[in-house]
């Protein structure tokens, strides 16, 4: 029990106090800041090892899928192929083997194989999936923006006015009035600067307190779901 639960909890407490104490001492005691910088370097390395843990899981899952001929197994091959090609380019670049000198640029700025793959496979795929949002934001607005009650009405009216104020349409509608072309754009700015800031601020303050409270629970060993461990 000690090794499996107590030890991790004691470590959590000790390690958790380090940044708290160094934070308040950092500006007063010269040299203290070396502690967080060193520990952070360690943490980045640990996270690096964790990525490999994920890779192992993906490879296991894909191989299993292919071996058992599960539905869609050929796609596991394309996954493994992408992983193998890109991953090996990456590792070879890290080891600086043969033509793989440098990851995203060669010693004289030339295009590396890794960069070529990044530009023509990775970047377009990333941008394409990201841009699906333009479609989804439209369908979400159509489907979900129904005036069902007062709260929904407030949300929809605000969204509608802001959308209108962000285009030349918003300037056009009230053009007939003196200075009218600034009305809707001005209203948009007001919505963002006043009610939206108020809502965001309230959420941020509450969430920050919630996060700090969670931190304290973890440091004190009360919250331990991440260890899978139950309270005593």
């Amino acid at each position: 029990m000690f090794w499996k639960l107590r030890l991790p909890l004691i470590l959590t407490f000790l390690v958790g106090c380090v940044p708290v104490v160094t934070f308040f001492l950092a500006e007063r005691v010269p040299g203290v800041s070396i502690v967080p910088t060193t520990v952070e370097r360690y943490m980045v390395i640990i996270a690096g090892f964790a990525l490999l843990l994920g890779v192992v899981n993906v490879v296991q899952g894909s191989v299993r899928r292919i071996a058992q001929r599960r539905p869609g197994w050929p796609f596991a091959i394309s996954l493994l192929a992408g992983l193998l090609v890109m991953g090996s380019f990456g590792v070879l670049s890290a080891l600086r083997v043969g033509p793989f000198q440098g990851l995203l640029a060669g010693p004289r700025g030339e295009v590396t194989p890794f960069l070529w793959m990044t530009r023509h496979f990775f970047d377009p795929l990333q941008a394409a999936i990201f841009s699906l949002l333009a479609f989804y934001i439209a369908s979400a607005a159509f489907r979900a923006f129904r005036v069902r009650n007062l709260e929904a009405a407030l949300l929809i009216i605000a969204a509608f006015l802001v959308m209108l104020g962000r285009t030349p349409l918003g300037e056009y509608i009230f053009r007939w009035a003196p200075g009218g072309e600034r009305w809707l754009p001005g209203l948009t700015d007001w919505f963002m600067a006043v009610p939206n800031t108020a809502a965001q601020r309230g959420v941020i303050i509450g969430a920050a307190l919630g996060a700090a409270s969670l931190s304290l629970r973890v440091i004190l060993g009360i919250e331990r779901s991440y260890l899978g461990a139950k309270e005593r």
Partner: protein
Amino acid sequence: MGQVLGLWIGAFLTLCVFSFLYRDNPFFRFAESLFAGISLGYYIGTVSANTLAPNLFRPLFRDFPNQAHLLIPLLLGLNLYCRFIPRIAWMARISLAVYIAYFVGINMVQKLQGEVVPQIGATILSPWGGAFTPLDNLILITGVVCVMVYFYFSIEHKGPVGAVSRLGIWFLMVGFGAAFGYTVMGRVSLLIGRMNYLFIDVVRATRQIL
């Protein structure tokens, strides 16, 4: 040539992704699984070339006596793999505990110092005045307080507290609506970028080599 070939590959993959809008299909499935593999490979590359090689292995091999302390993260990192050996699987928890504990400590002070204090400070305003109307500050202050009350957990929300928290919800709704409407433009820009790529960049590059 390599450039144009690359553009055509990118265009094909973009169309594969867009085909998902119609329905799930083998082209999307191909692009999606290829992307999963390539992206993992990408991070294997960046992690090994930008983190593990320069920050761990090279210092350890080149200057072991001075860099021996790097054995600590090395061991903690390797320790994660104990998960694969059932008898000592629990040992992986130690690395997790250390990792989480450190960041949880950082988050605690950062949230209080970097979020609560400045946000409260910025709300201590004279209620009369504002950039748009003379009531802006008053509305802002009311909104912040009402939303904070909405998040109060340990009293029941009825009577005056209920009324204030209801007002808090209204502020949240207006704020969410405005943010939603405001974001549309940025998302459309992303699509403009892709249309540009498909119908202007690729076409132009192809025309050049023909």
